[in-house]
C-alpha cells in the first residue's frame, strides 16, 4: 500500500521505504528536483521556491534552488547514495502570472531554472531529463520503490518522466 509523503514548499524529503511516494503538489514557479540512486534505492525530492540563497538569511537552505540542491545532495550521500549513480530529474519553473504589469518583474520560474542549471553544473551533476517552463502548474510523484517519476498538469493525464 502506497504511503504518500507531501513535500511542501521549501522542503526536501528523503526516503528508502519502498512504500513511500514523495509528492510535490502544484509546482508553479517552484522547482521539484528529484534525486534517485537506483542501486541503493534511495530517493530525495526537493521543492525549492527561490533561485538563490540570500546572504545572512536564516531561512532553511531548501527554500532556495542552489542551497537546496547542495543540501539534498549531501543528505543523499550521507544516507548511502553514490553521487555518480544519481538519476536527477527536474520539473516546474513555470511563469504563471500573465499580466502586462506583473510578468515583467515576476519571472521567478525562469530564474529558478537558470539557478538549477548553474548549480548542477558547479556540482558536476548530470540532469537526466526535465519538464520545465511554460505557464502551467505540475504535480510530481517520485516512487521510492523503483524511481518512477510522474508528472500531471491541469486538464492533463499523468505521464512518466524519464
Amino acid at each position, binding site marked *: 500500500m502506497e504511503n504518500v509523503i507531501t513535500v*511542501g*514548499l*521549501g522542503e526536501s524529503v528523503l526516503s528508502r521505504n519502498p512504500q513511500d511516494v514523495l509528492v510535490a*503538489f*502544484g*509546482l*508553479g*514557479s*517552484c522547482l521539484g528536483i528529484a534525486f534517485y540512486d537506483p542501486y541503493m534505492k534511495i530517493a530525495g525530492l526537493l521543492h525549492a*521556491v*527561490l533561485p538563490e540563497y540570500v546572504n545572512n538569511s536564516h*531561512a532553511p537552505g531548501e*527554500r532556495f534552488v542552489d542551497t537546496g540542491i547542495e543540501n539534498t545532495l549531501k543528505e543523499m550521500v550521507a544516507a548511502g547514495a553514490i553521487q555518480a549513480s544519481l538519476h536527477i530529474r527536474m520539473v516546474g519553473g*513555470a511563469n*504563471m*502570472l*500573465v*499580466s*502586462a*504589469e*506583473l*510578468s515583467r518583474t*515576476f519571472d*521567478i520560474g525562469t530564474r529558478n531554472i537558470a539557478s538549477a542549471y548553474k548549480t548542477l553544473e558547479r556540482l558536476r551533476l548530470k540532469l537526466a531529463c526535465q519538464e520545465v517552463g511554460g505557464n*502551467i*502548474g*505540475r*504535480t510530481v510523484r517520485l516512487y521510492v520503490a523503483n524511481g518512477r517519476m510522474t508528472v*500531471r*498538469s*491541469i*486538464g492533463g493525464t499523468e505521464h512518466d518522466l524519464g
Partner: protein
Amino acid sequence: MAEIQKLFDDEFMNALREVTLEGIHNAARGFSGMLGQPLTVSQPSIEFVPVFQIPERMAELESEAVAIYLKAEGELTGHMVLILPLKTAYDLVDMLMDQPTGTTCELGSLERSALGEIGNISGAYFLNLVNERTGQSSRPTTPAVIVDMVGAILDVLVAILCVECEEVILLQTTFSCSNRQLDVTFWVIPDSNSLKAYLQRT
C-alpha cells in the same frame, strides 16, 4: 508570538479589522452589483500566518481553480486574491454573461477578461473604502487571472510574498450567493512595511 505581531498593538489590529471589514463589505457590493445578484459575506478572519503555511489554508491542492490576483500600489500596498473552483468560475462567467448555467466549459480570453473584471471591481471597491477611512491613496494593478491547480496558484503567491517577509497578516472571507452555488474566497494581505510607514505618519 509571531515576529510580525510585535509590530502592531491590539489597538491597531482592532482598527485594521474594522477598516478591512468595511472594505470587504464594500468589495462585496461592487461584486454583487456586477453580478446582479445579492451576495453574503462570511465573518472575515484576520490571522498572522507564516508565509510557507499559506497553502495549508486551502484543501485539495491538486484540484483545479481560478485565481484573480491584484496588487495594491500607492501609499498602502499589499495583495488581493479571489480564489474559486474551476466549475464555479464557469458558473460565474455564465452569470456575468447572462447565459444558462453550463454554457461555459472553458475559459478563453473573453471569459478570463470577465473574471478579471470581477477582481478589478472587488479590488477597487475594497481599496476605495480603505482609502476613504485612512486618508491614504492606493490603487489596484491590472488583474492577473490564473487557471491551474490550487497548489500551483498558492505556490506563486508564496513566491511573491516570501521575498518580502516571513509572516503576513492574512484577511480571509468568502462571498456566497444563495441563488446559485457560488463560493469565492477573498484574501487580502497588506504589506506590513507599508502599514508600519502609515503608523509612523499618523
